[in-house]
């Protein structure tokens, strides 16, 4: 913590020297950190100011609903919550299948504020939880970076980056009440505690790591990242010959306590000892015991042959244990890698075997503009920072390198994992930039070359006896090439001012970029859409809430609503109606059933809907407004998922024209035109336009002159901009006719001859 402000002539120098100087700097640091936290919170409030205090998107609606349940019924009831209003008719053991950390956190805050007699609505706590925690994340990043770098400015820069970088804002704007809201803080803080534990080697820091790891497990499925990164760090350190009692103490403490803590979450349960995702942690736990034992013996018995024997023994035991793990996995005692994590390694796996994972847009691979969009100039400072970690490669720098490489890979494979990449990018970029600033912001110029920069080169130690080794060592330098020469400093003021000016400009540009991205891309609640009118004023499109409110007001309390799974949580949260499937995609077959009902002909769909007691069907249609996230665009995934279960009844090929195009106009395939989804989307749509002029504004195509006809459903509600359309499922015909016949009779058509349909009416079962 030595700042090189040694301008002793100035009268204010008393504030920057000695004990007073330390205090002044500490105070400044605190003020800066508070300002950063304030900026972090403030930059996430766009959506609240523009729209209102509202929960965003899809998953947050479930979290919100669960939090309300927790507050109403208490913790123990929440733990045992069986929810019969989702996944009709199966229901969901919600208490045992969620990560309760988020709800418990906001519940605790709620009760604490109540205790202080501050009557705050739970919704506002939920909306503002993510921004509040982002301030804490900035602070945790400061702590982590300060452990990594000797520079006094690196931590502050990292905190600043973390506070406003869009890569993190994307998941933590006000209203985005999702697990990531608190999980990123926990991730960074756990890593900070881990580094501290490794550095100090104390049981207390190891125990704290375990405690926050346990909290992290309760909050987000991404805890597996920590579960694998910490063992990897330990493993690399052992391979590098950096095993130390500090590492032993911190790792064993963390593993033992952390595993126990994680097993307290019902959703995780015995996974830490039964699934492959967690086996690396267990394996390294075993390995570190062996290495610790060997090191102990070596200290007692300095015989060379014995050491070789011991080393061989360690290797053999490790190999045997690894083989045993593989055998246990093959025989099924240990569950293989879960689909989500496995698909990170075998990137083609999900598309073939688990289309439901591949269908989620945030599970797509990341194109380069997304990296630049989310991280701006940090993305090119990042490699420089990683390189600087190689300068003096201590335990904590090794951690940065491992984290950087691994998380860049993950972020490249899956868009949503950009979130785990962001902290390390901020840390590494701050290390690089602070190095520049520290070098160029020194006021005094060097007089003569000083020779105190050799500390970076000090770790060369040749313990081998072979002659070749020495020769090779002299040929290949142990330290980095760029730090061989002694440190001198910057001579001219021109260079200093130019560089400082340029860096300031880049930093300002970065702030502008972050503000622009946050304001334009990440602050839309997606429940409420905004558009600009020709005169520049804002127009709010509020179809979702309109439709959900209609459901709440006009349907029976237990009317079952069928929709694609994306809208399940919103229907449950806003309309308070039972749904067939929702965003907790635990039952692929049930989702495929809905997919089949949507993609089949009415004659096939109707029995399915009757069997599932569906009262209303909800579709999202963007054709009128040009809203591209609608169901017709998601339709192929419904088909694919249904095809996975019923390959002979639903075929993706049938939805493409002979030339392989996905069309909705006149040339659409008959299967497409007869599918329930197509009919529901375009039913009555051409009545809005002059004859033959109907136009779909999303897919930019003209629709057939005559619209589709529905016989088993009737239109119940269509929202203002036609984004949401709700249909009521007709009851069975009173006279025992099929709905098609009844419809034909109503129109006055003649009944077709050849009355084959005799005998008792039976529900068609497919």
């Amino acid at each position, binding site marked *: 913590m030595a700042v090189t402000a040694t301008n002793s002539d100035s009268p204010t120098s008393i504030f920057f020297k000695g004990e007073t100087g330390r205090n002044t700097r500490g105070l400044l640091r605190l003020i800066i950190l508070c300002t950063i936290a304030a900026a972090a919170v403030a930059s996430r409030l766009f959506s609240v100011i523009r729209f209102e205090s509202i929960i965003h998107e899809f998953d947050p609606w479930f979290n919100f609903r669960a939090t309300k349940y927790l507050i109403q019924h208490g913790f123990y009831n929440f733990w045992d919550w069986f929810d019969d209003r989702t996944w009709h008719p199966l229901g969901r053991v919600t208490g045992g299948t969620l990560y309760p950390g988020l709800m418990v956190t906001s519940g605790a805050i709620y009760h604490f504020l109540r205790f202080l007699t501050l009557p705050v609505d739970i919704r506002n706590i939920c909306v503002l939880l993510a921004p509040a925690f982002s301030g804490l994340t900035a602070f945790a990043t400061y702590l982590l970076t300060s452990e990594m770098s000797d520079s006094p400015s690196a931590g502050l820069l990292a905190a600043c980056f973390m506070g406003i970088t869009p890569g993190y804002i994307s998941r933590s704007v006000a209203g985005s009440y999702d697990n990531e809201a608190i999980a990123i803080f926990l991730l960074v803080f756990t890593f900070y505690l881990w580094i501290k534990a490794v550095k100090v080697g104390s049981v207390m820091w190891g125990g704290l790591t375990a405690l926050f790891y346990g909290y992290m497990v309760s909050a987000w499925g991404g805890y597996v990242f920590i579960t694998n990164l910490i063992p990897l760090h330990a493993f690399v350190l052992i391979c590098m010959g950096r095993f130390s009692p500090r590492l032993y103490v911190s790792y064993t403490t963390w593993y033992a306590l952390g595993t126990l803590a994680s097993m307290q979450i019902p959703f995780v349960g015995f996974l830490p000892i039964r699934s492959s995702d967690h086996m690396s942690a267990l394996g390294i736990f075993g390995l570190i015991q062996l290495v610790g034992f060997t090191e102990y013996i070596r200290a007692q018995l300095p015989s060379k042959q014995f050491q070789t024997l011991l080393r061989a023994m360690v290797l053999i035991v490790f190999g045997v244990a690894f083989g045993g793990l593989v055998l246990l996995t093959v025989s099924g005692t240990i569950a293989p890698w879960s689909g989500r994590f496995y698909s990170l390694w075998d990137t*083609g796996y999900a598309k073939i075997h688990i289309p439901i994972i591949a269908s989620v847009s945030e599970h797509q691979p990341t194109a380069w503009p997304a990296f630049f969009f989310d991280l701006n100039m940090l993305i090119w400072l990042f490699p420089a920072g990683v390189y600087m970690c190689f300068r003096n490669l201590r335990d904590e720098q090794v951690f940065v390198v491992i984290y950087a490489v691994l998380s860049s890979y993950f972020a490249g494979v899956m868009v949503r994992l950009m979130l785990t990449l962001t902290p390390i990018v901020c840390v590494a970029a701050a290390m690089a930039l602070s190095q520049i600033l520290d070098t160029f912001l020194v006021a005094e110029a060097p007089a003569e070359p000083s020779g105190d920069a050799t500390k970076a080169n000090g770790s060369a130690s040749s313990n081998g006896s072979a002659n070749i080794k020495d020769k090779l060592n002299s040929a290949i330098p142990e330290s980095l090439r760029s730090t061989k020469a002694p440190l001198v400093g910057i001579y001219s003021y021109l260079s200093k001012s130019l560089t400082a000016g340029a860096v300031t400009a880049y930093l300002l540009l970065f702030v502008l970029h972050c503000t622009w991205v946050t304001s334009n891309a990440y602050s839309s609640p997606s429940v409420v859409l905004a558009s600009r009118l020709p005169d520049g004023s804002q127009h709010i499109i509020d179809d979702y809430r309109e439709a959900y409110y209609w459901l709440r007001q006009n349907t029976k309390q237990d009317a079952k609503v069928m929709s694609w799974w994306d809208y399940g949580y919103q229907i449950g949260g806003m309309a308070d109606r039972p749904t067939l499937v929702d965003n907790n995609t635990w039952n692929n077959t049930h989702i495929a059933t809905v997919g089949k009902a949507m993609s089949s002909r009415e004659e096939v769909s109707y029995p399915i809907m009757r069997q599932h007691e569906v009262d209303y069907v909800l579709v999202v249609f963007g054709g009128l407004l040009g809203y591209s996230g609608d169901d017709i665009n998601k339709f192929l995934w419904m088909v694919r998922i249904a095809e996975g279960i019923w390959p002979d009844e639903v075929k993706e090929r049938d939805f493409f024209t002979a030339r392989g195009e996905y069309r909705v106009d006149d040339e659409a395939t008959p299967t497409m035109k007869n599918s329930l989804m197509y009919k529901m989307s375009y039913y009555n749509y051409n009545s809005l336009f002059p004859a033959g002029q109907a136009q779909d504004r999303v897919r930019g195509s003209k629709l057939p002159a005559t619209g589709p006809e529905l016989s088993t459903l009737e239109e119940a509600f269509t929202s203002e901009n036609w984004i949401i359309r709700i249909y009521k499922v007709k009851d069975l015909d009173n006279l025992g006719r099929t709905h098609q016949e009844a419809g034909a009779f109503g129109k006055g058509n003649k009944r077709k001859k050849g009355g084959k349909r005799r005998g008792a009416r039976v529900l068609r079962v497919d």
Partner: protein
Amino acid sequence: MKVLQALTALLPLGVFGAKKAATGDRFQTYHSKQLSAGGPVKIDDKIYAELTKGPRDYSITVLLTALEARFGCNLCNEFQPEWEMLGKQWAKGDRNAEGRLLFTTLDFLDGKNTFQSLQMQTAPVLLLFPPTTGPNAKPDGAPVRFDFSSGTNKAEPIHSWLSRQLPSIPHPQFVRPINFLKIGVAITAVLGFITFATVAAPYILPVIQNRNLWAAVSLIAVLLFTSGHMFNHIRKVPYVSGDGKGGVSYFAGGFQNQFGLETQIVAAMYGVLSFATISLALKVPRMADARTQQIAVFVWGGVILGMYSFLLSVFRIKNGGYPFWLPPF
């Protein structure tokens, strides 16, 4: 005891023979052929017509394929061994022909007429003719066609498809045989590698333990991944594409698209920027000569400014509404 064993061993053969003698129908002839051939029977136009004509009390699958190299059908050649394996295992597992299913292969050279009459444009095509008489009969007897368009060249999907199409017959398990050659090669390679590593350790170890090497590897990995290499790998994007006017378009339009070359350009830009940053932070303050240092600061500062400005201009191509820019570009 011995006699009894011999008798039981003969028993299926005896039954088989009796049946053959009793009926002597097409199915038995070709089923025994299939058993002796150890795989699907090769047929030609004549046999095809004979086997598929109704009424049939058995099912038959025909793989219409073009194995000759001049047709250049990769999928046919890749799938052929899988098909043979499936046919062999099915026939073995259903030795008594309870399922009454025949496996046959019709090559284009032997069955030009059939290909013509079926108006085949592509190969391979797998047809399944269900029985027209008997307990499992389907009334129309029209063949069912397996869709190879998903690009499968494995036997497992075919097996499950057949099982779905013919639900009421026994389905012998399909077990992929253990590839001993592959295991042997793997073991040899591992042992060879260990030997090599032991012998060469004194030479290799300093290289492996070298910090510059690891730094280079890590940086290349980070640059590759952050410039969207995994996207190219997963989506199999084109390396580069034309712009419609005879030129080359280096940057794909749209935020969600990219070309292979484009990511390499971006990675190079990131690399240059990072290298300039490293030079500015680590190398420049180590220069002993004041004048050289001044020039170095100008050069590296200029490189960063120019490159960053170019990067921003490239990003504006990708994202039309992006409002920020820096001087040169």
